């Protein structure tokens, strides 16, 4: 295996390309795992600053897991485990055009139920599920990001879906 001489994260060009490649995924990972209250954007930045400070020690291949672990630890340091409530945007899904008051009420009810049900998922389930459903990532991509097998991802996502539906029915 050839090892390029200047394949070093300390070089701004390489650091930038790593940042571009992973920062968005990292942001989504943190957002869906920990919610918005702990400033996932700031944690992404902090994690990459850590990567820069350790640029000589971390090889580019390890950079992704380095920033994911660093950001995860930063989050965990900041707050003891608490229930994660994802906020929902004000934009309504476009699939339904019927906007009678009754429908609007049902809609907001459904949204509240969904929010509660999402908060009831485990961190691992919610992270994988939201990355799949909302960010449109395939099982394989999520498996690579989380360093787990595709089968495990499938299990998490399917489990999450099952649990969500059951919870919504129950609530």
């Amino acid at each position, binding site marked *: 295996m050839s090892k390029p001489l200047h394949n070093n994260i300390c070089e701004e060009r390489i650091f930038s390309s790593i940042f571009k490649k992973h920062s968005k995924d990292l942001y989504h990972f943190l957002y869906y795992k920990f919610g918005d209250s702990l400033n996932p954007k700031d944690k992404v930045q902090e994690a990459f600053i850590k990567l820069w400070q350790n640029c000589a020690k971390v090889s580019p291949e390890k950079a992704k897991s380095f920033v994911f672990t660093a950001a995860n630890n930063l989050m965990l340091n900041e707050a003891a485990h608490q229930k994660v409530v994802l906020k929902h945007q004000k*934009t309504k899904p476009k699939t339904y055009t019927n906007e009678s008051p009754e429908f609007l009420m049902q809609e907001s009810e459904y949204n509240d139920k969904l929010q509660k049900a999402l908060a009831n998922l485990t961190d691992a389930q919610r992270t994988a599920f939201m990355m799949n459903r909302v960010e449109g990532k395939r*099982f394989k991509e999520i498996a690579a990001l989380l360093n787990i097998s595709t089968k495990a991802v499938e299990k998490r996502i399917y489990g999450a*879906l099952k649990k969500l539906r059951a919870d919504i029915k129950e609530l």
Partner: protein
Amino acid sequence: MKREELITKWLDNNLNNEEFEAFKNLEDYEDLIKLNSYLQTFKADSYSVDKALNSTLSAIKSTKKQPKQWLKPLLKIAAILAICFGLYFYTTTLNTTINTAIAEKTEIELPDASSVLLNAKSILAFNKNNWKNERNVTLQGEAFFKVAKGSSFSVITNAGIVTVYGTQFNVKQRENYFEVICYEGLVGVTHNSQETKLKPGDSFLIIDGKKIALEKENASTPSWLNNQSNFKSLPFKTVLAEFERQYNVTFSLINVNKEELFTGTFPHDDIDKALKLITLPSQLTFSKNKNSIILKRE
């Protein structure tokens, strides 16, 4: 194909046309699509990679200039050391100060065999810990020094500095009045950065900034040590000032010349006798009312 497998494939966006039709026919199809569309409202805030990269790079550049990690604990230690040293220097350079009130005299033993007799209403300060290196005392008022032989001994006053080596001498520094009398040994007086050497019996007197020549002193100790004040051709006001310090009284003068020269003595332990002694030679009369005394020339 089984239902579970279809849903999993749908989740992974991996349905082919045929499978999709089958998925559509599932009884939970509607429910799943509804859930899926509502899930979109929980999407994370938009994230601009370029913006984030720029802010991260600028953060990196600004942190680079900051002091390194090891500097912080080092600064903490340095601060503690500085405080300790500061306290140490403060306590060791702290002066010992002795005050005497009106009509009070006291004898002070200095760290070596030297001693100081402090006259009324005077302040003496010296540093115990630094005594070996520097025998310096600060004086406001009047004191008689018996200095043990050794390195130079300095008396620092507002009017001047008196430096000696093992001797006996009296320093009197009052308002507009600075007098040094040497009784034994050799005394150097620095006044207005001019040094005058005094041999036993010599005195050095400055009143109102003017140097006044005095005759030789014959006594071996200053008169105040024997509870008396002696004056030889001194302005009457200095006599009154000393009297006020010894008896805690105030004078009011009627028709009296304060600059008139006075030669005489008054004791420190008998106010009536003392009053007579300062008034008779100048033919003054006095009336005493508690702590105020009126002097009058008939």
